[in-house]
């Protein structure tokens, strides 16, 4: 295709917290500076900047991309914001990848920020306006409803129990105990999840990731520059993204076809024929515990309807055949929407380099994947990485 190879060479992240003292700009600056420091670059080395951040309604700041530009190191540089809802954070490296793969930039700083705590009484309220204003908003929906509707459909289609699904939450919150950014890392049991407050049956409070503030950043480099900067570049070998219709009631709610479409695009590009064999480690988006299972199936890493059983068997544990969300995921590390996706990219970057500390999975994973999902449950974004 005439495109250049692109590597991740550095990464930065803040703690994920319920309410940060820092502004969005300050969080972005902290993550961006750390990313540059990690690969011994300065802002002068950066050719272009891309920034991902989810709804302006969270921050109450219109044109959030412009507002955050200072913190993202974008002043006086070619700069673009991108936004695909919850899928934003994994779209961020894709957006940066275009800049470097095309030859337009040798070094691109990719930043993702979210500050959800500014929205009161709860950022859930801001989600009302993602529903159709005429045919759905008058029914006063919340996002939790549609997750509950999807989870129920998924459970009913395959005969999966709430306890089967709760195992994902238990696993991820436990994994997060080893992540220095983690907001709600905890050692809990399946029974704790089942006993937690029922919000919208079948969804209980501990089935859900929290609202969070946080930022993350990575540095992308062209092959020539990457090899000069590090002896462990992690290559972005496949990218995929796809959007389904906003008529979400029309979709097959037990299978995320848009994730499959995005995955196929990324797999084709990376030359992956048998994803369940060739992908060694995965960070699918897990804002709700059932979503990890849903996404593993959409990514074709588990057969349809079997992700829950494989989870119960330990297949997705940190020391399992396919470690899934070894970071602790959105359920454990926290969920500052756009920053979460990039946190997942950073986890794969560190795992492939053998630098994930206590979170390091056994063996030497050579190929990993991060995925996010969002908008009105309609977007899939996928990045395949190799060392």
């Amino acid at each position, binding site marked *: 295709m005439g495109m250049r190879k692109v590597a991740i060479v*550095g990464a*930065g992240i*803040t*703690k*994920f*917290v*319920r*309410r*940060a*003292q*820092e502004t969005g700009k*300050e*969080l972005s600056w*902290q*993550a961006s500076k*750390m990313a540059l420091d*990690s690969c011994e670059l300065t802002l002068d080395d950066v050719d272009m900047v891309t920034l991902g951040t989810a709804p302006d309604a969270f921050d*109450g700041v219109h044109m959030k991309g412009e507002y955050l530009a200072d913190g993202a190191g974008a002043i006086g540089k070619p700069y673009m914001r991108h936004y695909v809802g919850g899928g934003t954070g994994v779209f961020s490296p894709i957006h940066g990848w275009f800049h470097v793969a095309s030859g337009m930039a040798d070094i691109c700083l990719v930043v993702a920020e979210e500050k959800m705590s500014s929205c009161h*009484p*709860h950022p*859930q*309220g801001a989600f*009302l306006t993602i529903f159709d*204003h*005429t*045919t*759905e908003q*008058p*029914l*006063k*929906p*919340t996002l*939790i*409803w*549609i997750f*509950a*509707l999807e989870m*129920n*459909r998924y459970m*009913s289609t395959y005969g999966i129990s709430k306890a089967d699904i709760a195992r994902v939450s238990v696993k991820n919150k436990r994994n997060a105990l080893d992540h*220095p*950014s983690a*907001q709600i890392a905890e050692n809990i049991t399946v029974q704790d999840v089942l006993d937690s*407050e*029922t*919000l*919208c*049956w*079948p*969804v209980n409070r501990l089935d859900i990731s929290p609202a969070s503030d*946080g*930022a993350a950043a990575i540095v992308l480099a062209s092959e020539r520059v990457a090899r000069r900067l590090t002896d462990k570049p992690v290559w972005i070998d496949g990218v995929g993204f796809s959007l389904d219709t906003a*008529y979400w*009631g029309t*979709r097959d*709610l037990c299978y995320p076809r848009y994730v499959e479409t995005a995955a196929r695009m990324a797999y084709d590009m990376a030359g992956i024929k048998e994803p369940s064999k060739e992908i060694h480690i995965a960070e699918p988006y897990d804002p709700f515990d059932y979503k990890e299972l849903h996404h593993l199936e959409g990514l074709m890493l588990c057969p349809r309807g079997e992700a829950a059983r494989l989870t119960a068997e330990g297949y997705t544990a940190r020391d399992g055949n396919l470690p899934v969300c070894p970071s602790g995921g959105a359920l454990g590390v926290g969920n500052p929407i756009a920053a979460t996706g990039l946190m997942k990219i950073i986890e794969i970057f*560190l795992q492939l*380099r053998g*630098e994930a*500390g206590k979170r390091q999975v056994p063996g030497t994973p050579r190929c990993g994947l991060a995925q996010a999902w969002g908008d009105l449950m309609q977007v899939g974004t996928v990045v395949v990485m190799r060392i």
Partner: protein
Amino acid sequence: MKLEDFELGGTNLKSSDFKQGTVLTTEWEPDLKYAWDNGVAIGRYLAELKEGRIIARACHSCKRIMLPPRMFCELCFRPTDEWFYVQDTGTVNTFSIARVNWDASRRGPDEPALLPAVIEIDGASKGMGILHMLGEVEPEEIRIGMKVRAVWKKPGERTGAITDILYFKPIAPARHTPPAKASAGAKKKVKTKARSKAGAARGKR
């Protein structure tokens, strides 16, 4: 690099920091109002709801009967062809028993759970579900696959809105329904017979 080797940013605040004024905040309560035009397809959809009917649009190319109606087919990317009345009955595709309001506040102990559902409307193409509510049913009796029928506001109270349908209720009375509810169900059945004229007008403008 290891994350553990860096001092990570991000300072967590507690509610007490605000109450005690340890940190200062600036507040703004926006007072924004929007008036959304309903457009051609949804405009007609709402006008028909006001008359107690549900209308869809047909695309002759992919043969879908689309609900909510739309003036163009997003798959064939061509104009849709025809208005098409569908039934006010359908099947529960999935549902939830919600204790949470739109703003994440909780339903009070005396407030009944909200019962949102995706309902596949009879007469529309298979899988064409819409979001609506269930009612006149005990939450534990709801099942995926259950047949339901719209319960409409009284004609004079309808405004041309999705809420002109109050909710959908099970067509066959549930086995344990107390007698009072069962008779209300029977009354509704007579009413819907009269409305099936709308069904007879299927496919006609």
